[in-house]
């Protein structure tokens, strides 16, 4: 019996794994783990389905130059080949000719080690990860407003104590179903749930209030709500005066966002806006949570800032069962962004251009600080530059299926094709692995040990339950093997617990301080919340009660304006396209599409009956969605739960992201996944 956590989303539900026979695993409930209390969705219950699957890769593969096919190779051959090619490229074109792409699903240990591999063994600045496409806008906003980026600054269960919970662009009932139990308890207590989404989702169906804005207008909605809160005298003036700066300018900015103007921009009737403002003003405890729907925009950071301003005006952040938080998406979306796989960061959420941070981390790594490269390109910009004159010529990919998950995917795929060398470490032959010159088979969740940091900032431990198949290495072993072949000045450990304690030292004194966390403490305490700077420190489940993490301890109210999406509908592309997830699949589907009992129905196009009538489509008919970047043919799903001016396509399959827009947020560098202009036809 092993206690561990689900391999998928950021809720990191606790579960127990029981061995059945020699290699099979059975998932069982772990009722004592507080986040999910034994509940799991079908993805969790079936997570062991990939074990022993024929889809698993069990041997390194190397593309044969003559035939162009992948053929099995030994680990030595594969790693020697990779190291030799990388060394040659570095010699010829400099260290930035090699890039590294990580993932928000990697354990803390892997994410940390990947950053170290890039900075120490490869000496490249070109490292980023797919978490940039997850919650980076919320991260950027929270850093500006609160001086720290921890998705939820409180345990998730705290929301049960709110009087009003506002979910902006979150469909948690489908993306992290066990979390919805907290909504039900909140409502049983008499609290209200508000959902803001262009689709009346499963989450919206269990809400008391539902607002259905035009995609890309959540920012204007927040400005309009704050306008009404100001007008109704709902601002907590004492709190604003004592705990924030900058509110005066924000107050003036929202004076221009009266309800009827907001109605015209957002498509939300002024009466609904007023009703929600009244609800907020009348509530003692309000919690605002944003997710990808609000964040994956070219104005995602500003959108989050606008909602934070609303929470601050109401005096909520730091109050019990109230405040603002981000519902992180990927399993280790939180930890993955803290330990150095982000282009501009070093472990402990340190900034790579901060001399003191460089000094500290370099000392832990045993290298000179001036040997560390500076900041590199963000995820999309890194991929966009591949194979160009000043871009990288080789790419190492860990824990990401870029071909499916990158925006403007056709273009990105062409950039991957332009590489001299593509190396992909994965458990299965993902769409990206299939393009690689070298594929390295790695362990999956139950076959390795490591920590994850869930959406609450709670560091949890996934324990190894079973030995990996023969021929499969852990990512840590792959990185160590590469580092030594690349002539790294320092050794790379392959023991997760050892790497974690090194990570702790590297993070010590940083914003995300893990120094006091050990595997044993995690086991005993059902996870430990960072910051936890020392062995005697209890961890920090709740932030901001006394002060914020800014130099003066006050939250920053940042004045923002609504600019609107990068692409607006026109004659040729008259509808909005938005994308998202379905319950039974996870991210690019590399794992879940290979679990036999999970339905793998392929993408579909959700559209309203009025729009379906307009184009003459019936439920189930094949329809074509076209944007300026590509097209997708898929069956129509005709539902009255979506705005009639919007179509929705899930992104777990190749196709949706051929349509999406690569316009980037100026601050977070988040692509605009959640809205672009499209045409739909039969």
């Amino acid at each position: 019996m092993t206690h561990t956590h689900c391999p998928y989303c950021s809720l990191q539900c606790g579960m127990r794994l029981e061995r059945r026979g020699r290699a099979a695993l059975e998932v069982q409930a772990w009722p004592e783990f507080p986040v999910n209390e034994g509940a799991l969705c079908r993805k969790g219950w079936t997570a062991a389905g990939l074990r022993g699957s024929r889809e698993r890769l069990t041997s390194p593969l190397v593309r044969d130059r003559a035939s162009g096919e992948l053929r099995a190779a030994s680990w030595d051959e594969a790693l020697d080949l990779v190291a030799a090619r990388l060394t040659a490229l570095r010699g010829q074109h400099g260290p930035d000719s090699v890039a590294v792409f990580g993932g928000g699903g990697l354990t803390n240990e892997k994410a940390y080690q990947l950053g170290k591999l890039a900075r120490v063994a490869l000496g490249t600045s070109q490292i980023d990860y797919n978490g940039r496409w997850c919650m980076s806008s919320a991260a950027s906003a929270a850093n500006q407003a609160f001086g720290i980026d921890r998705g939820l600054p409180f345990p998730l269960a705290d929301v049960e104590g709110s009087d009003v919970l506002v979910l902006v662009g979150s469909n948690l009932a489908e993306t992290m179903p066990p979390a919805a139990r907290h909504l039900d308890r909140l409502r049983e207590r008499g609290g209200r749930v508000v959902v803001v989404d262009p689709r009346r989702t499963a989450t919206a169906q269990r809400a008391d209030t539902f607002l259905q804005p035009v995609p890309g207008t959540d920012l204007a909605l927040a400005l309009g709500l704050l306008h009404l809160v100001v007008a109704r005298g709902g601002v907590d003036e004492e709190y604003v005066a004592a705990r924030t700066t900058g509110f005066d300018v924000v107050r003036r900015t929202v004076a221009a966002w009266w309800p009827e103007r907001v109605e015209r921009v957002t498509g939300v009737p002024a009466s609904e806006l007023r009703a929600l403002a009244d609800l907020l003003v009348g509530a003692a405890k309000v919690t605002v949570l944003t997710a990808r729907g609000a964040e994956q925009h070219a104005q995602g950071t500003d959108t989050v800032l606008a909602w934070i301003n609303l929470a601050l005006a109401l005096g909520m952040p730091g109050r019990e069962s109230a405040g603002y938080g981000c519902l992180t998406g990927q399993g280790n979306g939180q930890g993955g962004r803290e330990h150095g796989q982000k282009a501009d960061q070093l472990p402990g959420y340190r900034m790579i251009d901060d001399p003191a941070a460089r000094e500290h981390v370099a000392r832990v790594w045993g290298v000179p600080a001036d040997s560390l490269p500076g900041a590199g390109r963000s995820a999309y910009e890194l991929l966009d530059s591949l194979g160009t004159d000043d871009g990288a010529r080789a790419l190492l990919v860990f824990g990401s299926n870029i071909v499916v998950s990158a925006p403007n995917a056709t273009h990105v795929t062409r950039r991957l094709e332009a590489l001299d060398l593509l190396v992909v470490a994965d458990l299965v032959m993902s769409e990206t692995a299939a393009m690689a010159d070298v594929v390295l088979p790695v362990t999956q969740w139950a076959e390795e040990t490591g920590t994850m940091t869930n959406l609450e900032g709670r560091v949890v431990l996934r324990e190894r339950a079973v030995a990996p198949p023969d021929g499969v290495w852990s990512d840590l072993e792959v990185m160590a093997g590469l580092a030594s072949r690349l002539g790294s000045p320092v050794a790379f450990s392959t023991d997760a617990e050892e790497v974690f304690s090194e990570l702790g030292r590297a993070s010590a004194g940083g914003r995300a301080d893990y120094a006091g966390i050990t595997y044993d403490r995690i086991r005993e305490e059902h996870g430990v919340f960072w910051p936890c700077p020392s062995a005697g420190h209890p961890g920090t489940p709740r932030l901001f009660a006394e002060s914020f993490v800014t130099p003066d301890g006050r939250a920053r109210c940042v004045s923002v304006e609504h600019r609107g999406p990068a692409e607006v509908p026109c004659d040729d592309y008259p509808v909005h396209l938005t994308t998202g997830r379905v319950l039974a699949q996870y991210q690019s589907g590399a794992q879940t599409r290979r679990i036999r009992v999970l339905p793998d129905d392929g993408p579909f196009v959700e559209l309203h009956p009025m729009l379906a009538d307009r184009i003459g489509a019936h439920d189930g008919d094949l329809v074509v969605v076209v944007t300026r970047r590509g097209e997708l043919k898929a069956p129509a799903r005709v539902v009255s739960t979506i705005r009639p001016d919007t179509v929705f396509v899930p992104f777990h399959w190749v196709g949706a992201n051929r349509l999406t827009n690569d316009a980037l947020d100026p601050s977070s560098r988040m692509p605009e996944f959640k809205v672009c202009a499209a045409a739909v036809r039969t």
Partner: protein
Amino acid sequence: MSAARRIVVVGSGMAATRLVEELVARGAGEGVVVLGDEPHAPYNRILLSAVLEGTHPVAALTLREPEWYAAHGVDLRLGARVLGVDRERRDVMLADGTVVPYDRLVLATGSIPSLPPIRGLVRLDGRLHERVHAFRSLDDCTRLMGALTSLGVTDPCGLVTNRRPSGQKPAVCDQTAGATHTRAVMVGGGLLGLQVARALSVRGLATEIVEGGEHLLRSQVGGAAGRVLARDLRRLGTTVYTGARAVRLSDLSGDTDGADATGGTIGTVGLRLDNGYTLETDLVVLTAGGRPSTALARGAGLEVRRGIVVDEHLASVTDPDVHAIGDCAEHAGRTTGFVAPAWEQAAILADRLTGGGAVHTGSRTVARLRATGLDVAVLGDPERAAADGGEVVEVTNPVVGSHRKLVVRDGVIVAATLVGDLSRIGLITQYFDRGTRLAGAEPGQLLMGDRTAPPARLAADAEICACAGVSAGRIRACASLDEVRETTRATTGCGGCASAVRELLATRPALSGTT
């Protein structure tokens, strides 16, 4: 900014403020001079009726503080009335004699209230009769609110002073608290007249509207909508006189209300209509609209018709270095009176003043009444669009007091009137603004209610638990909740299906053959 690029803006209203914001956003705020004749920091004029009604405190209207202008290098001069523009010398002269040179002059002088031809309205000294109020500026609003106070009308919400101590709920606003016998007559039944009438009704006044045209909102809507509106207003307690002009205002001596504590000279007035009625009232509010404020432009020799005539660059057709935006400007034969087009013009002009090439092509307007209990939206110009051959799809429902009309041309909604039912406003406005081409049936569908599906017995393959992917049939096949959990995993995820599962178990047919 060098003196050679000195931008001077005359006016500090909505258009001028937005222009400055746009210039600042483009890094070109430094050195801009703003000459506002009102003494107040720029404020959101369109919310004045909300202040009157009590839903907004005056302080919530301020758009930018003087400090903001200073911080961005903008020279904001309040209470600065411009007397004249000298285009030869390229400068303007203020009432205090100050001369301000310009390279580019922007006239954003807005509009001034129309004075209807009513005898007795204006006193011999040129000021309005003290019972008569205009409603254009913050000072007008303050004066009217002061009159309400002296007539004993209380502020229902105490909004001026309300603050929200930590964790406490604010007091609920009791909008009936201010009920009095005070009366007010609105002269002019347009958008402003309706808003002010509703605001005063909410404050407890008995209100009447006098409209010279055949129906209310005659500049915006047709007779059917106007009649629905009049009925709605009567239901809300406002008397409406259409087809009637006020012709004479006179003081009523020995009036019954004269005994109030404020005493002094004030008494009620009589407003005589051309149909013979005389309305006895405490207040008269002039809401007959406004006209572009063009005196400066005329004085400077610029071409003025109804407004200051500008080209697609928002430059005067007489002088390319003088621009006009907002209510005072006339482009392609049209003036507007709305904020959205004024702001579009401000953005375009800011772009041009900073070297861009944006061009003004005209705006789509959405006129939206802001008044409690009255739901009105007018998109574009429905009467003209219909007269120009647009196809009209309309639904009038006098039983519930709604009238909705879409004017469609080539499948595109080019104008619309929505009275009494704004349930689809969010979508209709989007289609209107985007010029979305609709199918033939869609305009009709937009005016119909949503079809509600009849309740149905759940089919065996209907999904009950999405988390675990379990159908109704599989649940009906279980004997107990425990069995459901064990065999199907339903209810073990988000928990949302628990009640549906219990219901299915409770209503499942008894298994035959069991003992």
